[in-house]
């Protein structure tokens, strides 16, 4: 269910994870569950938004947009219905935190969504769950039913006269439906392709109405920020990247897992002290610090903080918090192919450069991985990635091009070695006489 915790963790969002039956409302209520909602109701909407702004919370879905600012964009007094949408489509390779939050503490998510609902004067919320996370739907629906029973959802919540209904909607297995506007299309029953922006979901979201859309972890953070105050959260990170985040470290480390770490944590600390370091005798080859969409870092670039701004400065991104560590045994060509296979499979097909670009890149990388092709093909990969980057309709195309471009640039030598090795290989004796 959950990897053993690390002593270096700061457990705010994961504070109830060890509690028995932590997914039930009883366990939640026994550990200050829904105190944040009550406090939000007492504070009023403006104070809630100011508190979130003060927490320096940035979106945990990937883009890292300041959450308080996003909340302040919603036209709360619009005569149209206002919707709260939770993005639980978690599909970024390397990222596996939202599911733990839902599995272990669904009530902290429901509470965060309810706080948003109250703040935005909304009467309806949706949790859009990744299609493969079917088992989480049962957990969520059970938890929602409990919350209804305790008058924490439904009609006249806690005697305020405010009504709020919350629904769970299953995705159908498309990474692109994690992109906010494609998610809204999918939620409306349409094809999961992204929408033109502007207008943005804040004003023209679900059913063309004002919509607040946040990641699971962002909503969970809100619950704790409101309950314990912004300062208590903000202090764990640098000025513009407040709080803790669930960092998912995978790959060639000894203790892979999901750890709630302050955003002031550095990458070497995470790898060595939290992740248990590399396997004995191995050396670091590369790190992807923000999910499969982030440009790769060479070992010498790894001395970097894990907050949003430090990673951006290092030419990559914090993304969704998936940190993939590769040691010297990793075949970087195969790794590049694995990444592009994912994006090629997930490209929604709406725009030309992503649809055709990912397909072409996959074909070339497949060849290169077989040891076929020439170094000209390696250059071509770099050029195609460059031609895609910044020119696709949505960020999926960028997410495919950016890491791929960085890999061929930084690891050209690896490609050369692989091609040379395969091409120089003696043909096995038993095959010599065949045709």
């Amino acid at each position, binding site marked *: 269910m959950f990897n053993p915790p690390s002593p270096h963790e700061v457990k705010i969002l994961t504070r109830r994870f060890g509690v028995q039956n932590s997914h039930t409302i009883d366990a939640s209520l026994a550990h200050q569950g829904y105190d944040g909602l009550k406090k939000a109701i007492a504070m009023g909407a403006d104070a809630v938004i100011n508190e979130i702004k003060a927490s320096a919370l940035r979106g945990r879905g990937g883009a890292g947009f300041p959450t308080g600012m996003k909340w302040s964009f919603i036209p709360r007094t619009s005569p149209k219905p206002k919707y709260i949408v939770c993005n639980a489509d978690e599909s970024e390779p390397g990222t596996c935190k939202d599911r733990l939050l839902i599995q272990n503490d669904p009530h902290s998510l429901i509470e965060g969504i309810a706080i948003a609902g109250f703040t935005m004067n909304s009467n309806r919320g949706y949790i859009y769950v990744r299609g493969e996370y079917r088992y989480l739907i049962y957990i969520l629906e059970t938890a929602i039913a409990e919350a209804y029973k305790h008058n924490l959802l439904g009609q006249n919540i806690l005697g305020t006269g405010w009504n709020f209904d919350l629904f769970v909607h299953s995705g159908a297995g498309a990474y692109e439906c994690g992109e906010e506007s494609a998610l809204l299309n999918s939620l409306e029953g349409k*094809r999961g392709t992204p929408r*033109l922006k502007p207008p943005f979901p804040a004003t023209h979201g679900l059913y063309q109405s004002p919509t607040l859309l946040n990641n699971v972890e962002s909503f969970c953070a809100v619950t704790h920020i409101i309950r314990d105050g912004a300062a208590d959260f903000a202090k764990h990170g640098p000025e513009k990247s407040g709080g803790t985040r669930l960092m998912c470290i995978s790959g060639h480390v000894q203790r892979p897992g999901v750890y709630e770490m302050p955003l002031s944590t550095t990458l070497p600390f995470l790898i060595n002290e939290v992740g248990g370091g590399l396997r004995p005798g191995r050396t670091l080859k590369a790190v992807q610090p923000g999910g499969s969409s982030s440009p790769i870092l060479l070992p010498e670039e790894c001395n970097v903080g894990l907050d949003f701004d430090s990673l951006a400065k290092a030419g990559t991104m914090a993304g969704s918090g998936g940190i993939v560590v590769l040691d010297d045994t990793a075949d970087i060509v195969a790794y590049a192919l694995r990444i592009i296979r994912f994006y090629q499979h997930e490209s929604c097909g709406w725009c*030309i*450069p992503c649809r*055709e670009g990912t397909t*072409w890149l996959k074909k070339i990388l497949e060849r290169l991985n077989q040891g076929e092709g020439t170094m000209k093909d390696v250059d071509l990969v770099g050029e195609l990635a460059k031609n895609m980057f910044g020119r696709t309709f949505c960020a999926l195309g960028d997410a495919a091009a950016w890491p791929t471009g960085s890999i061929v640039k930084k690891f050209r030598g690896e490609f050369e070695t692989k091609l040379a090795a395969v091409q120089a290989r003696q043909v096995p004796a038993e095959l010599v006489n065949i045709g």
Partner: protein
Amino acid sequence: MATTTAPPTVINAKLNGQDIQTKPGTLLINLTKELGIEVPAFCYYEGFSLQAACRMCLVQVNSSPKLLPGCTTIVTEGMVIETESPLVVEARKSMLEFLLTNHPLDCPVCDKGGECELQDMVFKYGAGESRFVDIKHHEPERPFSPVVYYDPARCILCYRCVRVCDEGYGVNALGVVNRGVLSEIAPNRGDQLNCDECGACIDICPVGALTSNTYRYKTRPWEMKHVGTTCAHCSNGCKTTLGVRNDEIMRANNRDSSGLNEEFLCIKGRFGFDFNHHPDRLQSPMLRIDGDLQPVSWSKALAAVAAKFNEVKAAGGKFGIVASNRTSNEENYYLQKFARTGLGTNNIDHARTGDVVTLVDALSGKQGKLATMADLYQTKAALVIGSDLAQQHPLLAYELRRNWRHHQARIYAMTPGPVREDKYAAATARVAFGEEIAALEGWREQLAKEPELLILFGDSIKGASLRQLVDFGESLGIPVKYVALVDYANSRGAIDMGLVPELHPGFVPSGQPGLTLPEMLDDSQLDVLWVVGANPLANRSQANPKAFVVVQDLFLTATAARADVVFPAASAYEKKGTVTNVTGEVQRLTAAVKTMGTKTDLEIFGLLGKEMGLELGIWSPDAVFNEIRQNVRGYNVTMPILATGGAAPTTPVNGKVNVETRSDLVHSAGDTLFTSGSMTKYSQVLNTVAERPGQLYKPV
């Protein structure tokens, strides 16, 4: 309200180094188009929703670090735009390179070769050689319907077809399935289309992914002559461009958007021209000899008819002349002149399909009351009474819908059954034929609040009820315009040219008694029945079986089969002249092809008159049209509009018509989207599509 600053009325920007000015809210791609600078695009299509999917129109704008799509970027004050910078040129080239990776490049056999937007763009902006050496993704082509074929390999996923079908026609029969590189266009009923079969998707497709069964693999575009003319079927009067090769019509479309219908055509306009080449076309005059119709020479047939006509005329016998809803204004004018001055009879009529006469009379003394086609797209509100426009008046339905999409026009529909307008109308009501006037009172308050109104009504509104409708409209206190819906390509011209006993051309009372169409057939004393492009004996017989029957037609209709003399007539696609559409606009017919052995009706009239020794004037279309312009009120239209293939609005009389018109004879034939009177039988396309009247897409 005193201190708000007025929004700017002009935007200053810099385009490729030049200072330019434009209106606020202008899309960058439209700005460049206005200035004659090409920014290529596949998915952008004026009038339809924005996609920004093809990424061909990426340009450089100073406000953005990334290239921006011209199709969704609005020009703002101080913007510095580059459309030809090295970065933009390189981006375009790479986009085409991406696109070609999975494109089959079978241009030598592709229908679109020579007029393909992809071909043109690669020619202009593409790379000289391909860096793609891998295997292309391929899917086989497949029929979506008897007219629409889809070749997924050629599809560039620009979604134009999806939008024209959904947004344009309101049919929504095409969608996208699968994901990524496997994405393709799919029809709405399993692997088949259930739709209007209009073929708009085929024409709007920038490449050869959608092709028509009637045209595919038959010819190359440059082997054809392209002839602009007017559709031969319904009264809406769509301009169509016929692609002609070796005296055969290969296709019809209107890609140059030149007519009042812009690009619109329905199945009949786009595919229903095939009647013209039906093997049953009459190609020789026929004379009844020994009880059988036998082919004879033109001179023999003309002589026989002239002799009989002179004989009956001399004996003071009775003629009955049944005119057509499809012949040209020139032919109609000449025919009524033939009847009235040549034969001395007023017994001339046609199958009347709309009560235009009462409408003109009821509106006497008022100006600007008859709507033009442009009004349908511009009016703020429209009321449809007793007609399923999508079935019977496809262009009108399209224009109203377009008006709603672009200007949020408010549409009211009062019809006996469900209609396509229901989906977006401000109000709809199910009202039986004949009960509309009473039901209208319920909408009075709402309608009176509209700034203006355009009322379209079918054949259930005629005579007294039409006068009541006009009273209702004129009592609303807002500007109201009217359209009397009529059936066929020149139904309106038939009335305007006086093909009824009570009126001379231009709504001038004839003042003489004359037989109406049913009266002719019921008259046991009738000596001659002369039928031009009509089929009055389709379901009935005539009271005098011995009457001498002369028929001019394309086919051996039920009436022609009973004739004594049959003249093979040329079709509307084979003659020069003009026709007048449902909204009173005159348009040109151009002779695109010729069927051997036929003559135009005008020529037949002329030769017959000459044979009889009559002096009816020159029978060239130009000469007759000149006469019409001089003699027929409202037809003094601007010639350059006509000559360039435009639609010239007529200005019919304003003033009492002063006749008792036979409104009771007004009956619409009730054609659907897939029928066209007797001609339906001879169009293979109209007979092979799966849709049948009544099965047509209906809103649920």
